[in-house]
């Protein structure tokens, strides 16, 4: 091969990865060590090196994440059963505890999900920066854009390539290729000559700063890998960053599972030690809650349906009118319910249900329960002291709601000799062990318990609760709406994209034989369908839209540099360096496991799609065309397409990893096809004790599961 590739062969294996790890750990374990490690090294003088560095770093970021994943896999293989057994009990693992350990507890399919998360995260950041550059440097677009776009493309590329390159690696015994793209990609920017050095320098500087700022921001975000228990005893691990509230995590889980997204789904925390549990309110910050858990906590997070969560909004009369008058039925028509909710939650202040009655209170440090008359007010829970009336002025404050969470106590008859099992517990969120500061209360029956718990939640959270509910309803209705739409949609889009491709073909590829064209259509269809399917299971159109763009974009972006390089070969204009760099790059894919033959044929030259789509949302391509793509326009020589498709295909794979392929609306045939394309089946043979190969194995395993 070439010097560049060989030169970095060993460096990333050691230094790069180590650095990357610290990068990852910094955000994840910021609690433990508060040094913002992210954008530490950036002192190189030449702009090339700088961008190089940036991308290198970005890449090493990703590698770091992967490193950890693979390491955990390694752990798993080395000492297979013992840690796993013990970790089974660990239901949730926090980053600051021991990331390796926590990751070792992950199951294979989790890895895929995590990978998807990671890639999505990075893509987002980069897209942002690119866009920012676009807007800010609009005037210089002609020249500067190519470079930025290449940058972006490069970064996408290596991301998409990561799994693939690894396969290539253990196949051909090549030095780890990941660094190659990282170092080489920056080179491709072809237009150095047309631009004055100064301009370019400032541009590069600006880009660099933006990128750095974005990364700085990103680096400061704390992320945890959270293991969520599903109701079928399986678990899912997902990445939660510190800005996410329970609602976001739920949405994320909706994507990953095929549940009906109804409003009752909640994240549910369980403290086995205290035998308490509660659902997270949708607006609560998940990381904040989890940060209160101790290192050796047995607490877990569940994903399940709880009717109690929003019962008050479904049947407000049970909470607001229950105590008043016996003649009022439990049923109420929808209009009255709405009216009642409006009245209770939409006024200047939220109305807390009138609630009073005798409850049992566990006495501090004793096992006895004392019956007291309690009242709920917006300002707290009060009780009537002995010999006093229950007029407001005689009430004694039992507890106020600031810094207090409410939990259900389970099995307290057994644990604390409670009079009934209908108990609720009030405690400071940070308290994790038994303590005199935890208040235990016991109700006579289930209904009373629900009334109290709900009443306290209303008093504590106020209108937020109602807003949460409305959002949840919106989400649920969208989901059901999509479920209906999804069956129709794919056909429509497939059709439209078909016409699109035909057009594009007409322009660009005149030489393609009809059979091939047909095959192309076919893949085009499946390709196009995928985003839709993703939509189908994510089911939120507005939110999913950008993501599909990203996906598309990610899958779209890679080819240009390659094509350019191929085109370059025919044009002497281009400098040698970029050519070389990209040549190196393209050579990697070539060394990949031989793509299944049927695929190679199937694989239509993707350009049509690329040329079609970018204008919609990706600014870069047009300028690229102006400078260097002209040469591209002529029918691309046969090889590049296959390369492009190769480098292109893997992305769908990684992308697909996130949401398990939706099987309901699509022909299995079709969905399987890209899979087989994306994943060279040959990847399985790896006897090397290599990080990347392990990761690959994990990915493969997963794919095996799904197909």
């Amino acid at each position: 091969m070439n010097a560049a590739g060989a030169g970095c062969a060993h460096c990333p294996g050691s230094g790069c990865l180590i650095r990357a790890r610290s990068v990852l750990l910094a955000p994840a374990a910021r609690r433990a060590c508060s040094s913002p490690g992210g954008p530490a090294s950036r002192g190189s003088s030449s702009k090339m090196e700088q961008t190089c560095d940036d991308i290198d770093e970005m890449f090493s970021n990703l590698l770091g994440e992967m490193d950890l994943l693979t390491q955990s896999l390694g752990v798993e293989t080395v000492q297979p059963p013992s840690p796993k057994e013990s970790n089974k009990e660990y239901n949730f693992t926090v980053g600051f505890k021991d990331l390796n350990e926590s990751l070792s507890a992950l199951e294979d399919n989790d890895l895929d999900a995590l990978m998807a998360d990671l890639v999505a995260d990075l893509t987002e950041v980069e897209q942002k920066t690119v866009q920012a550059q676009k807007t800010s440097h609009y005037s210089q677009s002609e020249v500067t854009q190519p470079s930025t776009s290449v940058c972006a493309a490069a970064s996408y590329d290596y991301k998409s390539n990561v799994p693939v390159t690894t396969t290539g690696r253990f196949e051909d015994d090549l030095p780890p290729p990941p660094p190659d793209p990282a170092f080489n990609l920056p080179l491709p920017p072809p237009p150095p000559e047309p631009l004055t050095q100064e301009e370019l320098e400032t541009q590069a500087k600006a880009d660099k700063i933006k990128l750095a700022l974005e990364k700085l921001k990103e680096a400061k975000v704390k992320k945890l890998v959270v293991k969520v228990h599903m109701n079928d005893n399986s678990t899912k691990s997902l990445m939660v960053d510190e800005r996410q509230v329970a609602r976001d995590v739920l949405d994320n889980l909706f994507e990953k599972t095929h549940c009906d997204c109804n409003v009752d789904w909640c994240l549910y925390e369980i403290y086995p030690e205290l035998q308490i549990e509660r659902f997270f309110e949708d607006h609560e910050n998940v990381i904040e809650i989890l940060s209160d858990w101790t290192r050796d906590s047995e607490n877990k997070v569940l994903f399940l349906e709880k009717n109690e969560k929003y019962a008050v909004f479904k049947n407000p009369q049970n909470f607001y009118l229950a105590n008043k008058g016996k003649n009022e039925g439990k049923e109420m028509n929808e209009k009255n319910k709405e009216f009642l909710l409006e009245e209770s939650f939409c006024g200047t202040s939220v109305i807390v249900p009138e609630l009073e009655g005798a409850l049992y209170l566990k006495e501090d440090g004793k096992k006895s329960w004392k019956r007291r008359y309690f009242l709920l007010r917006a300002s707290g829970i009060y009780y009537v002291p002995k010999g006093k009336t229950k007029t407001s002025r005689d009430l004694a404050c039992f507890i106020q709601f600031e810094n207090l969470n409410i939990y259900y106590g389970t099995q307290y008859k057994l644990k604390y000799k409670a009079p009934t099992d209908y108990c609720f517990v009030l405690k400071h969120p940070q308290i994790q062990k038994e303590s005199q500061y935890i208040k235990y209360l016991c109700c006579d029956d289930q209904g009373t318990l629900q009334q109290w718990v709900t009443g306290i939640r209303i008093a504590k959270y106020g209108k937020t609760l109602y807003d949460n509910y409305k959002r949840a309803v919106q989400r649920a209705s969208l989901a059901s709406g999509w479920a209906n739409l999804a069956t129709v949609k794919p056909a429509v889009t497939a059709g439209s994209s078909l016409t699109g491709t035909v057009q594009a073909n007409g322009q660009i590829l005149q030489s393609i034989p009809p059979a091939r064209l047909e095959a192309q259509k076919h893949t085009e269809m499946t390709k196009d369908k995928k985003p839709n399917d993703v939509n189908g299971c994510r089911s939120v159109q507005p939110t999913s839209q950008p993501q599909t763009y990203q996906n598309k974009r990610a899958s779209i972006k890679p080819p240009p540099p390659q094509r350019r390089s191929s085109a370059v070969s025919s044009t002497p204009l281009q400098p040698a360096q970029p050519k070389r760099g990209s040549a190196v790059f393209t050579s990697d894919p070539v060394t990949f496991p031989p793509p299944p033959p049927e695929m190679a044929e199937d694989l239509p030259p993707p350009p049509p799609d690329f040329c079609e789509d970018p204008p919609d949302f990706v600014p870069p391509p047009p300028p690229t065309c102006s400078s260097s793509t002209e040469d591209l326009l002529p029918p691309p020589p046969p090889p590049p397409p296959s390369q492009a498709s190769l480098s292109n295909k893997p992305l769908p794979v990684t992308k697909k990893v996130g949401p398990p392929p939706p099987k309901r609306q699509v022909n299995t045939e079709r969905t399987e096809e890209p899979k087989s394309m994306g994943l060279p089946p040959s990847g399985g043979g790896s006897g090397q004790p290599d990080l990347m190969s392990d990761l690959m194995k994990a990915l493969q395993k997963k794919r095996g599961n799904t197909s």
Partner: protein
Amino acid sequence: MAGLKTASGDYIDASWELSVAVEELGPEAEPLTLRVTGDVHIGGVMLQIVDKIKVKQNWSDHALWWEQKKLWLLKTNWTLDKYGLQADARLRYTPQHKPVRLQLPNRRMICVHASFSEPVFRAVAGICRVLSIRHAEELSLLRAPKEKDKKKRKGPVLGTEDEFDLSGVVLPASAEQQPFRGMPAHFSDSPATEACYRMLSVSWTGLTPEHVLKMPRPSNLVEKAQINSRWLSSSRSLMQQDVRENEQLWLRFKYYNFFDLEPKYDAVRITQLYEQARWAVLLEETESTEEEMMVFAALQYHINKLSLSADPTETAGEQGMDDLDSALSNLQVKLEGGTSTSDMLENLTTIPELKDYLRVFRPRKLTLKGYKQHWVVFKETTISYYKSREEALGEPVQQLNLKGCEVVPDVNISGQKFCIRLLVPSPEGMSEVYLRCEDEQQYASWMAGCRLAAKGRTMADSTYQSEVQNILSFLQLQRASPDAPVAPDAEAMGTQWLVSPRYQKKFKPKQLTPRILEAHQNVAQLSLTEAKMRFIQAWQSLPDFGISYFVVRFKGSRKDEILGIANNRLIRIDLAVGDVVKTWRYSNMRQWNVNWDIRQVAIEFDEHINVAFSSVSAGCNIVHEYIGGYIFLSTRSTDKGRGLDEELFYKLTGGHEAL
């Protein structure tokens, strides 16, 4: 023309003499006598009167009032016959708008011109337009309590000493009021009216404990029911209800259903509502618990403090903007000050620290150890303490993260004790730590840091300095001895007046102040309007809020009971115990009737529940109007463009005369 006479002087037409009293001629003047026939219309009569008086003035507001029938003869095209007017009728030619003295919800007096000829509903609307209070339908007028009630309390009645006069104010013709210099244009005419606007929109700060003590306080439900007997009927005019010129009336929010409170337009409305709420709380008309009272006290203190410097013309939003502006300029200074980026970053990220020798005390069971001197470092949200300054580099004796902790002041100024009690949460429970400071300054800076840390913020927070100042000013409050003469300055006023007399008695000032201070830390950052809104909201969330009481006797019952009327329900309450016996919601109400002969209100609810009662403490028309009024208010739409359906209001609230 009427008045054809024979030579002997006998009238030969059917004319007769009508006597009309005209106030403008003086109190002793004989009434005018006009010769009229039955087919003269009212306009003609008025013309004759004006001709006869021979006084040049604007008579356009004048109209005829028929005293016996208590009727305004407003339809100028009606004839005397049509009105049924005979020679025995005593008429007065009098202005339709007369001055009345109003006691506003903030207990201040104001003199305004009110319509005496239109229904009270409309008269109130007119008054509210002058006062620039939106949604006049929520307010109404009450008669002032009788003189004999007044005599019970001695000393000056609050607010009567300085009465504001808005009677000369002329409203612009257009309904839309243009703000001018931050206030409705008609207030900017003269310094006097500007002062009046200030009175209306900024709460009065000169309150003393005596004021509160001298106010009559209802002590039970029956007394609470008394006030409701004084409401004027909305569908009849003031004149018809025997209200005299310059009589004192109360203007109050009657229906506790406050629609669309918007700080932008409602400066006066919110202030007056806050004042009504404040008095309801202070006089225990709406009962609250000790904890709630402390919050109310803290909010009042805060509002008072801000009111002292408040400029009424400043709109609500601006204060927040100012903060933002200053924060931004601060940031700018910081950014510009930094020479290099690394410096800048450093500046932005350095968080002030506190380091000092403090005495630390950790109460534990079975130990008698007292405070021990430690070197204490407060960094970000964490307090670490060391045996000595020299050991600060090593391991601390203990480290406490204050996030989510409870911070309680433990201060005794006369004893020079400045302690901070921290209840720090940990997985094992809460651990208690006392920090003892040397002096006020040290205490204030540490205390402010602790408070911010408890909320997860550091001393780099922009509110840190103001928090320190707050604490210092509260300490100042505590220092002022309660015997000292009361100064008008709120700072020196003590805290007694912030709570109802019950709690004034229950707590000594030095117990009270720390508790208010504690509650104050949660509201200290609110703007004036926000604080008022918070007060109103807290008031609204009291269980007793918005219930108007009446003593009634239910059909079939032998004893008096209390009927509570709230904005969404009727409540039957046991008079002796105060327990809720039964609740009916308006949403279940089918219809209600009033039998005016036996003065009984009969209501039918869904599922054939019938309730009938007669009102004991107030006229049954008042009860009727209350219920009807709430139902009317619930029909208001959020569409601001639409006016009120006045007809509907009269239909729902008026007695038989309105139908």
